[in-house]
């Protein structure tokens, strides 16, 4: 219905990359990785010519989550989209060709739609509106599609969990793909392999080998390289932030490597130069294991590094003691003298192809912390270690301890990671309907929500439980936590960022369990009593929140924060899309209370003033994702 579509974008539109955080190293920060190449969606010039007209660019899209195949667009660019009809339903091929590749993108599925990403035009990761499906197969979102032969499907792999979000929301996908390998005669010596597929922050595929092209591939044969193909014949779909890094079969190589071991911990290179090593020799690998010293020693590797191709190189050191790295006597990076192996020091350098002397120095302070890893990334070279695997820290495999939900809701307190920070005052709640959420007991607000299985508590209940973490078993929708309720002197006063535990701002607080074991959190702020209850919404689409307020002569105006994010859109159906379409707020019922969207310090906030009637007020709304 061209022309009828209106997009209500209220508030500042901030150009902001998808705020979701994955749990792996897929998207390291810009300083910590070489940049991805972005596929421009300003027009279709990055793609091979298509005779049909189903593919175009847009500045904004809207898909009503309840309307089959609905996708409305706003003319412009930045978003790639497919709107097929009977005559226009071509697949789209990139101009570039790839072998090994890391690919990251955001996609938006209209209700009931279907698409796919074919690596090398041959091996498909399925995109599908699998929202709310209880069980998933290879045909569902994040699946590796089946192969086809003699009227029969084979291979194919279902995603580990259903990590799908609702139609019309942006979802995030990361694919790490290894192309098939061939010998000089052209004979295949290694199958194509999906090393990792991450959907909405959860790994859904790991190390999946495929013996040949999947069903409906563009090519029957297998080749070292091929174009990326996006499926266009099964329904509308939109993409943005599509970025990739392609890799070639090349690597840095090391030559003439020697090592010197000095007794004592020296972090000054000049001092080291003046000392006699207690041990030295030649080595063909970089590993702290060349040293038999127990502690308090300094290990220096010197050698030559053969750079295969000119370009930007990024180096990373991590170690259980101070370490630093030089090329051609120039400082590249150090690990900030950290004793924490998980701490990385990054350094970037432009290098011409050729041979360079290098020095890697590692200082061991404590015997149980022996570890040094030097990694790098370069043009056409993925992040790879230059040290041996045994020179790093190896994490053991553990059988997980999980909490399952049976007939009644389950609550479990613990620590939880939220936006890379450990939150210490958290209650996780799982419902039999396979809807779960985590609630922050410092700010009394939603921390995250997920669908599917409930909780992994291995890190709390195994041995000493050194991290005390509970981890969602489904793909978590992480919500930015600000306090739900605040007493503002005026409507444009700033919303408080947080409340510290020992401020004791909240009084008379805790939670009660209803007869069916559903927790209702309660507290008093100022002289307003608040009760906050979350329940699965009908059809497991999300959570319904009910907030009850009881007033006792409040002098301040009481406000409730329904949502905050980079921006908040009021949608034509009366609902809201929050934080660049990460989730919906729907069915807002606030009696006479009218919501407002405002902008505070670059953050959009959906506020509702709480106006008492007979000292009571109630707000209800749903969070759908």
């Amino acid at each position, binding site marked *: 219905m061209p022309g009828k579509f209106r997009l209500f974008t209220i508030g500042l539109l901030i150009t902001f990359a998808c705020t979701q955080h994955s749990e792996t190293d897929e998207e390291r920060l810009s300083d910590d990785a070489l940049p991805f190449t972005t596929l421009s969606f300003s027009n279709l010039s990055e793609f091979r010519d298509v005779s049909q007209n189903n593919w175009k660019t847009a500045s904004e899209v809207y898909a009503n989550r309840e309307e089959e195949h609905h996708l409305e667009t706003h003319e412009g660019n930045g978003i790639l989209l497919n709107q097929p009809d009977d005559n226009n339903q071509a697949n789209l091929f990139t101009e570039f060709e790839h072998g090994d590749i890391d690919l990251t993108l955001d996609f938006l599925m209209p209700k009931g739609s279907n698409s796919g990403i074919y690596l090398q035009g041959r091996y498909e990761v399925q995109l599908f509106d699998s929202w709310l499906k209880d069980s998933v197969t290879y045909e569902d979102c994040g699946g590796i599609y089946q192969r086809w032969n003699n009227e029969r499907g084979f291979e194919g792999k279902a995603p580990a969990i259903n990590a799908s979000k609702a139609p019309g929301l942006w979802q995030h996908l990361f694919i790490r793909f290894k192309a098939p390998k061939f010998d000089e005669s052209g004979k295949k010596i290694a199958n194509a392999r999906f090393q990792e597929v991450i959907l909405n922050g959860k790994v859904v595929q790991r190390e999946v080998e495929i013996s040949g092209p999947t069903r409906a591939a563009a090519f029957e044969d297998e080749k070292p390289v091929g174009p990326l193909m996006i499926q266009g014949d099964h329904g509308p779909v939109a993409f943005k932030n599509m970025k990739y890094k392609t890799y070639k079969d090349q690597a840095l190589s090391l030559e003439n490597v020697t090592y010197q071991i000095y007794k004592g911990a020296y972090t000054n290179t000049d001092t080291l130069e003046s000392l006699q090593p207690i041990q030295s020799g030649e080595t063909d690998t970089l590993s702290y294991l060349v040293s*038999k010293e*127990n*502690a*308090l020693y300094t290990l220096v590797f010197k050698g030559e590094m053969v750079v295969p191709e000119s370009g930007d190189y990024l180096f990373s050191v991590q170690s259980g003691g101070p370490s630093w790295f030089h090329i051609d006597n120039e400082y590249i990076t150090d690990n900030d003298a950290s004793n924490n192996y998980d701490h990385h020091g990054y350094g970037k350098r432009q290098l011409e192809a050729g041979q360079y002397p290098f020095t890697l120095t590692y200082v061991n*302070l*404590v*015997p*149980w*912390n022996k570890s040094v890893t030097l990694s790098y990334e370069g043009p056409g070279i993925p992040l790879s270690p230059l040290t041996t695997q045994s020179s790093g820290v190896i994490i053991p495999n553990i059988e997980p301890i999980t909490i399952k939900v049976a007939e009644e809701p*389950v*609550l*479990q*307190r*613990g*620590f939880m990671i939220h936006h890379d920070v*450990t939150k*210490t*005052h958290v*209650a996780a709640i799982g419902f039999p309907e396979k809807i779960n959420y985590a609630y922050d*007991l*410092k700010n009394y607000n939603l921390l995250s929500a997920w669908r599917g299985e409930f909780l992994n508590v291995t890190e*709390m*209940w195994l*041995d*000493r*439980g*050194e*991290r*005390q973490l509970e981890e969602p078993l489904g793909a978590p929708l992480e919500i930015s936590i600000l306090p739900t309720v605040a007493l503002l002197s005026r409507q444009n006063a700033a919303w408080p960022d947080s409340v*510290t*535990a*020992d401020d*004791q701002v909240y*009084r*008379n*607080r*805790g*939670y*009660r*369990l*209803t*007869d069916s074991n559903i927790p209702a959190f309660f507290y008093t702020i100022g002289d307003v009593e608040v009760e906050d209850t979350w329940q699965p919404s009908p059809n497991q689409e999300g959570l319904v929140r009910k907030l009850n307020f009881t007033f006792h002569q409040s002098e301040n105006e009481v406000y409730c924060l329904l949502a905050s994010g980079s921006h908040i859109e009021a949608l034509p159906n009366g609902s809201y899309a929050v934080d660049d379409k990460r989730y919906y707020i729907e069915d807002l019922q606030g009696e006479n209370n009218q919501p407002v969207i405002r902008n505070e310090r670059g953050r959009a906030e959906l506020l509702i003033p709480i106006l008492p009637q007979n000292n009571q007020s109630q707000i209800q709304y749903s969070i759908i994702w």
Partner: protein
Amino acid sequence: MVTNLKHQHLYFLLLLFCFSPLCAQEDVTALENQYYRLSDIPIPEDIVLEVGGMAFTEDDQLGIATRRGEIWIVDDPYLKKSRQPAFKRFAAGLHEPLWLTYHQGAFYTTQRAELTKITDTNQDGKGDLFQTIYSWPLSGNYHEYSYGPLMLPDGDMLVTLNLAWIGEGASLSKWRGWMLKINEKGEMKPYATGLRSPAGFGLNAEGDIFYAENQGDWIGSGRITQLDEGDFAGNPSGLIWTNEPNSPLQLKRKIFPDSVGLMHEFAKNISSLKVPTVWFPHTVMGISTSEILSIDTDAFGPFQGQLLVGDQGHSKIMRVFLEKVNDEYQGACFPFREGFSSGVLRMAWGSDHSLFVGMTSRGWSSTGPDMYGLQRVQWSGQTPFDMKAIRALSNGFEVEFTQPVDREQASNSQAYQMTGFTYIYHRTYGSPIINQQSCPVVKAEVSEDGRKVRLYVDGLRAGYIHELKVNDLHSQNGVPLLHPSAYYTLNNIPEGEGLDHSMMVAQQPAATENVARSCGSDPSKNITEMPEDWTDGPDVVINIGTKPGLKFDLEQFEVTEGSKVQLVFNNSDDMLHNLLVVNPGTAEEVGKTAMGLGLEGTQLGYIPDSEDVLYHTCLLQPESSQDIYFVAPKAGDYTYVCTFPGHYISMQGTMKVISRSTAAR
């Protein structure tokens, strides 16, 4: 940070300590069982009852909080109705509750982050109202355990907050290392600090507050300390919060050098520093004190008015007699009952005056082999022949017995051996025994009723622990003394007559200032420098570290017989460990012998003088390491084991020595 253990020297007198029944524990357990019977309360198989807290309800049901966050109610803990009592789940989902209190119809507990009150408002047997009474910040460090509340008679509650562990104890968030007083309304008053690992605290019969501490940094050995408002109990980490307006003391962290010296001397100039009321010498009287419970009845035997103190690592319960001298508490600790099935963390009195004992050993193993357990101690009605109390006198001690003594044996001063010693007050983890000196008992006078013996003792030192060993003493009825050792912490010597030196026989105190090397008695088993004739260096270097939960990180390694081995042991744990290579099949025996070493154990680093011990490291501080060198013995499966008391059960590995012919193939 790395302890250099190679250049310390060995100068100490070998004192004969090991004639005590500590060397034959199983016998003691059997004897104790005649008087204090131990029985299991069966736990249903599907319940992981890692006990964090216990409390009886007004209906005489036993509430149990578990480390997995549940609260169970045992309907018939006395097993009157059934041999398998019913366990009903009252609550779940809490964050490691390590205490349970029942007060006016509600349970109270601490979770890691808060003090919580749990009420069953609709009387359906399940808690439905969870109220946060008071909440505190957390850094997220695993060692930030929270304990309490102890309900005071006025309804105020006491809570203690464990320090974080970052290679040493640290107060990373507010009030860590403190005892807090909190009322029902959620008003909090910081009460005392200097705490490190305060898992247990309780009131004595007079209503004074005592807390139990474990060995660690700044804490030379386990102990209990009486706390008043504004007291500082020894570990300075919590002092970073004394600038807060509600802090009851102003003492600052910066006045503490890394090594202070003697705590009781230092305390003379620091009014808020409270010295320990009773020390529990490490490994002799447990290794990790836990609950403190007062015996408020004579229905549990002859010890009314005394305290029971649990021990997690040694799965036992000890007993404390207290008295006041110069208006301050001091007293003695005695063995009481050992042989529990897991780590003793909590105790609670049943209405029939039997003692319920709740246990866990996850993460910190115990001599009791089970991961968790629930047991009960009942007095048989027979009175054991035991030391009941020791009272300090100006010139000795008065020892009170539970029954009249054999007059002739008891009046022989040779039957008593007394040794004074103390610990270093320093930042380092634990302490060797220092300034050890024997104190001759010059005369023993038996009271008219035969129940008390007055010991005239030379060489008493205020501030020192005084060990009393009694040899071959029987009761008037011929029963041998059940527990012949006790440790009196003599903070103050009562004023009065001194010792009449005419009484002194020709016996001089064997003064022995010594420095403990903590490294066995045979230096040839602890070669820490590479032998000079190993010109090509070792044939093999084996690195062994530790894992949390008392384990080595290497379960097995293989060497060829006759090969030159450099073994590197890295103690990366937060407690003391050693590593002994012992003959095949002897680890258990060596481990038990080490436990029985008594005070000598500290000096030997718990390395027994045994032919079965082939090579060993010294006893290593947390975060230190040592290299030892040896030539691999003849082929066989040898065990390497940590013999720090209680660790040998789980901390073992195998050194497979293969024959040269096998190796050649």
